[in-house]
Structures are given as structure tokens and as C-alpha cells.
């Protein structure tokens, strides 16, 4: 473990896309020239005020930003400790934080003149968001999705089709998110000329982890303003769930240099870390190279990637964004894990006490909030990212609870 303490936790990555030893560009030569072009185009867009203005306009009028920062009174009372706030990114158009990133990247793809968009999806939230922005701009959209996920996220599959996207089932490997990403990369290699790969999380080769983080940082930027308005000061604790980690980094990033803030990422422990059936890359994995970057991965002793497991399709990935690996090793962010069962309990609790049916992903975050909130003082401000709504999960939850619909 490195114990270096940089002057800023917000300055990464370096020009080669590294966060400490993590990140980088581990891709086939065929893709390298294109990835360099994406980087150049993104750098140019960042420096162009009209790009941000256009993005802001769509975020406001199409996505529905800013999303509210909501004080959750009944959960606060129930836990009997910290003041619980939810960042309501589940209220975004399409029902999750994923659209923040898709809107940014689709504007970039348009600037690059790309007509065809490919994406990978696990829970289907990113696929739906990608299909949505493609419909908005009249671009062709192909979404790769594992057959296991297609089965457990049927409503989202139909939504993508309604939006005009082609959903291509992926049967290789475990037929989940990692395999969908492999297949999307294979498509991209074969269609470099006209195709833009709209990666849905803070993973992949540089510049994706930094670019997706930047587009998701609207979450934390808004929270900073909203909590100042509500409480006149910054929060004490931030909590978010982590699969690839885009909603979490989106909330965390603007606060990383506020050293008094306790920042916690919640991984999916599936059936339990000790069962081997989980998706907690930091807790149960070690550094390796997959999908274009070095990061913590679930893998065996031979460097073969292992299958992840989580009841939440959106967390079911054997890796994690490289910046999280770096924040983990530098100690700035604490990473914990929550099992399927714990997440299910939090899912139900939130529905009953706040009238908010959370997605299974943020239900993991809420479960950790339930662990820590009772022991925190009443003036402790805790902000949790409610990064998605649970409509897509009602069938999965019903099945897990033994309810026949």
C-alpha cells in the first residue's frame, strides 16, 4: 500500500491517464489512435465554453437538473443519529445518474462527427440513458448486454428497444457487464471509423475514467451549493454505492480536498465476501489490468478474471474505476461492503419510511448509512447519493422476497 499524501486529491490523472499506478491505456493498437482522438476532442471541448453551455442547457431542460437535495426526516428519526440527506439523482430523466454522463459524451460524439454509438450495460440504466440520448439526436445505437442481465432487467431491455436501440445479447463468459464490455470493445475495434464507444462508468482506458468523472461531478457540485443553502456548511459524511463507481466519484470528487469530510464508498458483498460470490473489488480483489486500465479486480492466482456476483446488476462488475483504487490506497476514501440481504432490507425500509423506492444499487449505500447513522450526533450531516430509482428492480426484489407477481 502506498501512503503518499498528495497536495490535492483532485489533480489526477497525469497526462498518460494514471492515478498513481492505476488507470492507463491498456488497449489494442487498433484502438489507440481513436482513443487519442477522443482525448483530444474532450480536451478541446473542455476548453470551449460553448460546449459546457450546451451541456448545461440539456442538463437543465432535458435531464431535469439540478436534482433536489432532500432531507429524509423519517429515516433520520428511525436511525436516531445523523441528519440524512439524499441527493435525488433518481429523479433525473431515465431514473438514474447515468444520463449525466451520456449527455456529456453524446455531445462530444456529435462534435467528433460519429453517427453510430455503442454502449455496454449491466442493470440497463446506462443502456437506457445511452439509447435515450441517441434517440434525442437521431444517432444509431447498439447496446451490448449479457443474457443474464437481459433476463433480470427485462423492463429496461424493452425501454431500450422503444427508444430505437438495438440490444445485442452477450452470451460469452458469465453473460454480465464485464462480458458486455468485452463485446463492445470488439465491436469498436471493427468499426473504428464511424463508431463512438459511450462507456457508462469511470473505467476503461484514459480519458474515459477522467471524462466520465467530470460529467458526473455535476452531482457533487450541486450538493456543495445545496447543502450550504440548507445548512450553511459542508457535509460531514458522504456515502455512495460503487460498481464501476461513477455515481460515487461524481458525488465525492469536488469534496476530496475537504479533509474533514468522511467519504465512504459501498461495494456489493453479494452473498458475503467470504463466500467468494460478491462484487467487492477493493475488499476482495487485487490490482490487475482489464478493460484498458489497471485497477483492483476480482481474479484468481493466474490472473484470470473471476465472476462477480450481486443481486444488483448495476454493481455486478469484477473491477472498479481506477481513481477509486487510488483513493483506496491513498486512504482518502473508505470502502466498505454490504450484502444482498442487507441491501434488500434497506430497499424495503426506504420505500416504507420515505416513499422512495430506491434502486438496489443505492440500497447498498443506504444499508451502510443504517450502520453508521445511529452512532453519529444529531448535528452530523450525512449525504447519500440516491443514484437510481427502484422501478427496474421490483421483479428482482419480489423474487428475492418470495413474492409472486
Amino acid at each position: 500500500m502506498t501512503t503518499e499524501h498528495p497536495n490535492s486529491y483532485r489533480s489526477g490523472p497525469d497526462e498518460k491517464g494514471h492515478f498513481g499506478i492505476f488507470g492507463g491505456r491498456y488497449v489494442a493498437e487498433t484502438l489507440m489512435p481513436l482513443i487519442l482522438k477522443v482525448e483530444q476532442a474532450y480536451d478541446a471541448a473542455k476548453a470551449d465554453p460553448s460546449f459546457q453551455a450546451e451541456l448545461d442547457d440539456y442538463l437543465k431542460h432535458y435531464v431535469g437538473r439540478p436534482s433536489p437535495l432532500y432531507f429524509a426526516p423519517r429515516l433520520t428519526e428511525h436511525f436516531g443519529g445523523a441528519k440524512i440527506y439524499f441527493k435525488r439523482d433518481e429523479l433525473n430523466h431515465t431514473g438514474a445518474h447515468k444520463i449525466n454522463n451520456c449527455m456529456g459524451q453524446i455531445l462530444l460524439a456529435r462534435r467528433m462527427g460519429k453517427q453510430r454509438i455503442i454502449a455496454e450495460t449491466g442493470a440497463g440504466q446506462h443502456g437506457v440513458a445511452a439509447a435515450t440520448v441517441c434517440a434525442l439526436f437521431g444517432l444509431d445505437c447498439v447496446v451490448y448486454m449479457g443474457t443474464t442481465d437481459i433476463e433480470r432487467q427485462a423492463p429496461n431491455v424493452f425501454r431500450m428497444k422503444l427508444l430505437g436501440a438495438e440490444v445485442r445479447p452477450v452470451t460469452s463468459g458469465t453473460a454480465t457487464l464485464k462480458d458486455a464490455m468485452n463485446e463492445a470493445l470488439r465491436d469498436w475495434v471493427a468499426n473504428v471509423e464511424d463508431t463512438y464507444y459511450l462507456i457508462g462508468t469511470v473505467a476503461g482506458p484514459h480519458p474515459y475514467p477522467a471524462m466520465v468523472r467530470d460529467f458526473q461531478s455535476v452531482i457533487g457540485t450541486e450538493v456543495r451549493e445545496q447543502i450550504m443553502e440548507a445548512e450553511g456548511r459542508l457535509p460531514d459524511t458522504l456515502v455512495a454505492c460503487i460498481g464501476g463507481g461513477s455515481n460515487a466519484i461524481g458525488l465525492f470528487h469536488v469534496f476530496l480536498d475537504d479533509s474533514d469530510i468522511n467519504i465512504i464508498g459501498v461495494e456489493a458483498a453479494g452473498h458475503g465476501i467470504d463466500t467468494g460470490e460478491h462484487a467487492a473489488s477493493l475488499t476482495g480483489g487485487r490490482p490487475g489490468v482489464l478493460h484498458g486500465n489497471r485497477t483492483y479486480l476480482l481474479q484468481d492466482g493466474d490472473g484470470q478474471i473471476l465472476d462477480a456476483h450481486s443481486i444488483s446488476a448495476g454493481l455486478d462488475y469484477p473491477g472498479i474505476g481506477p481513481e477509486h483504487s487510488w483513493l483506496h490506497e491513498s486512504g482518502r476514501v473508505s470502502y466498505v461492503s454490504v450484502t444482498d440481504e442487507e441491501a434488500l432490507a434497506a430497499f424495503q425500509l426506504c420505500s416504507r419510511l420515505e416513499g422512495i423506492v430506491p434502486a438496489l444499487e443505492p440500497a447498498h449505500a443506504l444499508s451502510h448509512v443504517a450502520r453508521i447513522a445511529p452512532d453519529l450526533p444529531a448535528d452530523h450531516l450525512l449525504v447519500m447519493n440516491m443514484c437510481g430509482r427502484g422501478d427496474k428492480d421490483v421483479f428482482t426484489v419480489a423474487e428475492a422476497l418470495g413474492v409472486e407477481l
Partner: protein
Amino acid sequence: MSAPNNGATSGRLEARFAALAAEGRAAFIPFIVAADPTIDATLGILKGLPAAGADIIELGVIFSDPMADGPAIQAAGLRAKAGGANVRQTLAIVREFRAGDDTTPIILMGYYNPIYIYGVDDFLRDAKAAGVDGLIVVDLPPEEDSELCLPSLAAGMHFVRLATPTTDDQRLPAVLDHSSGFLYYVAIAGITGTASATREAIHAAVRRLKNHTDLPIAVGFGIKTPEQAAAVAQVADAAVVGSAIVQLIADNLDDNGQPAENLVDTVLDFVRLLADGVRSARPQAAD
């Protein structure tokens, strides 16, 4: 090029290309995946390859997520995993082959993570000792040279770089820098075992590369028949065939996924046809 070759290579690859240049013909390079479907089957095929006309051998090291490979090699990887393949086992296979053949170069081809987890220094030491002559690692572009390319060159292990249709003239010098042994031209923008480039496109590409380097140029991806191999061998210094051979292995397994009785012979017969195609490509070489 300016490769920091401070470790002596095995010399087998240099000797082989020099001999072929003197003969005036291209090399034929077959690819199979180590332990597909069993270690014994791989050894049977490997030991027969030189006599069947293989000049250099590419041996695939399995990885669970082979992003640059099509269905045939993906399936081979799954079979090999069931057959007990890992890096250590692959090196053991090379060691046994090397005990009976000290001249045919062996190049390992795969992805970085299994090597990274094995440990770069340990891997280079063990691979060299086993008789490996070079490496092709798909997901290590020049941008990540410090990971394995530079340590390989320092250890006297060839690091064979991939150039592709998307590698334009501006980028090509970066790809050539530190490339050693030969340059592997990926004939299509795509994954293995799918589309084939036209003969004209391949010829133009090889001519372009030869303007930039003196390294031998091997061409692979989409070469499936003796005729295609011959067309490549007219201009390139080597023709690589992978998926077509690997598919033949898949087609010669019994119901339990074990090698059918004639598997090794069937594969070697096909290799002979491919090698004959390469050897007949340039008329002057026949005499």
C-alpha cells in the same frame, strides 16, 4: 531500431528470418492456444509443426477476457482453461517442446494481466529459461512500454509489436520504436477470425511499413486458406494463421470435448497445406 537490447536474445528468431531471406521465401507461422483442449494434444501438435512446415510458432496464453479475439479463439481459451492452462503450464509446454527442437522460434501471444500477476521479472526469467523467443501482448501499446516491453528487451526477449490499419504514418514511428524480432501487421481493423483484408490492401500496407522499417513484417488476422496465405507471402516476410487452425481443433473433438483420435494429424495436414501455400508464393523460391 533503438531498442535497448542489453540482454542477448536466444538468436533463434534472427537466425530463422536470415535463413528464410537467403531462401527467398516468407515464413509460415501457425497459432494455437496452449492446452487446447489438453496439454498432450498441444504437445502433439507442437512437436509435429516444424516438420509440417511451420517456420515459427505462436502459442496463445489464455486470458478470461480476450478483447481482441473472435469466437474461435475465445472458445479455444475456454477449452484450454478446462484443460488446465495457465502461464506456468504454458511455459512447461514450451520447455518440453524445446527439449526436442532448439531452432524453431516460439512466440507467446496473449494479454497482459496473467503476466502481470505472474510477476514481470519472474515471467521473463522463466519464459527465457523455458525457451520462449518473443512476446506479443495485445493490450500493451507503446504508451505502456515501461510495463513489459522495456523489461523484455532488457532481458533479451523479443517484444513483437502490432501495427494495424489505424496506425497512421504519424503514429508508426512510436510503434516501431522498441519493436523487436518482427513487426506483426494486423490486416484488418477488427478481431481475430472474422473479416479478411483484400490482397491489394495487404500488399499496399506491407509496402508502406517497409518504407519505415527493416524489421521483417508478419501479417495476420483473417488469413484462413492456403491461397490467402500465399497471397500474403508474396510481399510479407511471414503469414500467420490462427483462428482457422483453432477452429479445426474445435471440429475434431469428441462429445466430451476431448481430442478425437485423428486430431493431431488433421491439424498437421492443414498446416502442411498452409505452409505449402506460403512456400509456393514466390516462384523463385521453389528452385
